[in-house]
């Protein structure tokens, strides 16, 4: 069963899609569903796709809300009749979810996720300054050292080797003109 937080997040996500769908319909009307000659116009597809998205998003929200209500009632029932079984399930879920094979807790992994996303954003910003290869080289080292907590030396070696391979495939072999950044090296 989904946790309450996930349920709320799911409804929120679907609501955002519904809003985007509605906006697309409005935008499509602006572009014109049919042109002067009565032919399909540039606004037709946005209205069609946005409309479908809006309708199905609303249906999904309704189903989710109803589902939550039913599930809550069922959960109460289940507790009354076979609370032992429910407890066992919960325990199982807990052990499965909480610690991975490296003994990392859920909270630690959440922090890792945020760190990786942050590193990616910084990397993309750095491409303009350092160039593609150097920026992504830093990304590899940063993930290895900061997120995966590996030793400096081995992290740098592995990163350099991976980077060299990528550079050879894309930069040399496929002749992709990778951005060089302000430094103009690599």
């Amino acid at each position, binding site marked *: 069963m989904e946790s309450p937080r996930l349920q709320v997040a799911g409804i929120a996500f679907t609501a955002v899609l519904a809003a985007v769908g509605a906006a697309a319909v409005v935008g499509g009307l602006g572009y014109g569903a049919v042109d002067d000659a009565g032919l399909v116009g540039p606004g037709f597809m946005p209205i069609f796709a946005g409309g*479908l998205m809006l309708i199905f998003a609303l249906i*999904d929200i309704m189903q989710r809300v109803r589902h939550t209500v039913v*599930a809550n009632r069922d959960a109460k029932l289940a507790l009354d009749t076979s609370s032992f079984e429910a407890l066992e399930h919960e325990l199982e879920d807990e052990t499965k979810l909480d610690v991975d*094979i490296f003994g990392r807790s859920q909270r630690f992994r959440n922090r890792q996720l945020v760190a*990786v996303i942050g590193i990616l954003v910084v990397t*993309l910003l750095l491409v*303009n300054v350092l160039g593609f290869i150097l920026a992504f080289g830093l990304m590899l080292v940063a993930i*290895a050292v900061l997120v995966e907590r590996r030793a400096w030396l081995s992290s740098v070696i592995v990163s350099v080797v991976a980077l060299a391979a990528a550079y050879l*495939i894309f930069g040399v072999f496929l002749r992709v003109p990778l951005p060089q950044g302000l430094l103009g090296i690599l």
Partner: protein
Amino acid sequence: MIDNLLLGFQTALTPENLLWCFIGVLMGTIIGLMPGLGSTTGVAILIPLTLTLEPVTALIMLAGIYYGAQYGGTITSVLISTPGEAASVVTTLDGYQMARKGRAGAALAISAIGSFVAAIISLALLMALAPPLADLALNFGPVENLAIMILGLVIVVSFAGGSMARGLMMAAAGLLISTVGVATGFSDARFTFGNIDLLGGIPFVEVMIGIFAVGEVLYQIRIGAAEPIKARFRDMLITKDELKRSAGPIVRGSGIGFALGILPGAGSTLASFMSYGIEKKVSKNRRLFGKGAIEGVAAPESANNAAANANFVPTLALGIPGGGTTAVLLGAFTIYGLQPGPLLFETQPTLVWGLLVSFFIGNVLLLILNLPLAPVFAQMLRIPYGFLYPIILLTSFIGAYAVSNNMFSVVLVLIFGLLGYVMKELDMPVAPLVLGLVLGPLFEKALVQTSALGQGDFSIMLESPISVVILALALLMGVGPMLLGRLRVARRSRRSVTESEKVDV
């Protein structure tokens, strides 16, 4: 016919051509392993390398890259859920699940076998029937294409997964994303918000890399490093039972792939999605689909390979490209001073038949190369995820850049990576979104053209017998299961009135 075949074998089996064919499939496989780099980009990027070769040798090598890249894309679809191109998106659904269960070797082997069988079937058809088939394909104009697109959209329903509404919602989202930019027949830029880079629309390659590769990495980080899969070598081999289960899907997939592949533009992506959708309806093991059913790998892999071969029917017989990669290959013809067109079979028999036979040899080489290598590639999963994912991120972003030479693509990958992560976390189906995105522009184009042809009147769809048949098929696939399902529910509820049933999740 026999003379032509002999001529073809004489041409293709020279040591030089054999060597370049091998180099082609090998390089293609490597390119296919890079996220985002599919056969189209691979062939386009490597054309300059072939300029010093004889035309027939160069084309043999480029065709090798085409096949190799498709297979390379399959490998990453299965191992790390990262399709190399849109046609192998479907393979991730069951291929990746098989890999997580330690059956990666089997999944890779069946796709190699399926691709091979499909290639042989479609090549035989191609050699025997290319010119008449090409003429047949010309009957498919805008009206018929629109009918096919409607059928394609109906197929989406098969991919909805747990919740129908959610699946259709994501398909609509895909359609909507595809409307960004300037569409065929219009000069208006839609939803670009003044951004020049958006004028060209949001390309599905970037969306695919983002949602599948980057999204999956982020998701894996959050749910915790999965245990490296320690499958024994014995487990890596395909079993007799799996082979038997795959036979039907491979044959059906080849048929669907070939049929859609000869139509200019319809493409292998639609073929792979359709064959999967059909297997999901007819298979005895349909409940296993999405959880690692080997049929779900065999069918789409055969279909996209058959379509890739069938793409050459209009390309060689008419001089009209069947798909993106064959369009690039046709461009290459001009570079080598060859005039593509209906006379190619007559004026350049050595080239055409040499090329056709080399397709056959290329596929044999791929099979020889990949059957033993499948378990070896599968060993990659033994690398702990902590080492693997930074490399996946690096190749994803660099691959995205290589496709368009534009940092904007890299930014798109990150955005769709975050979206993909959220979708996985919330259990939103991904495949309908990709299908919507791929079908969107094709659907809109056919719609606009049909509307122009009929002067706004869509009843011309009912004047074409071909389109009527396809529409009837779409109706059957769309409404049929719903009626069947309703019937089943009605029967079941009558039987278990007293039993209070728990609502399924």
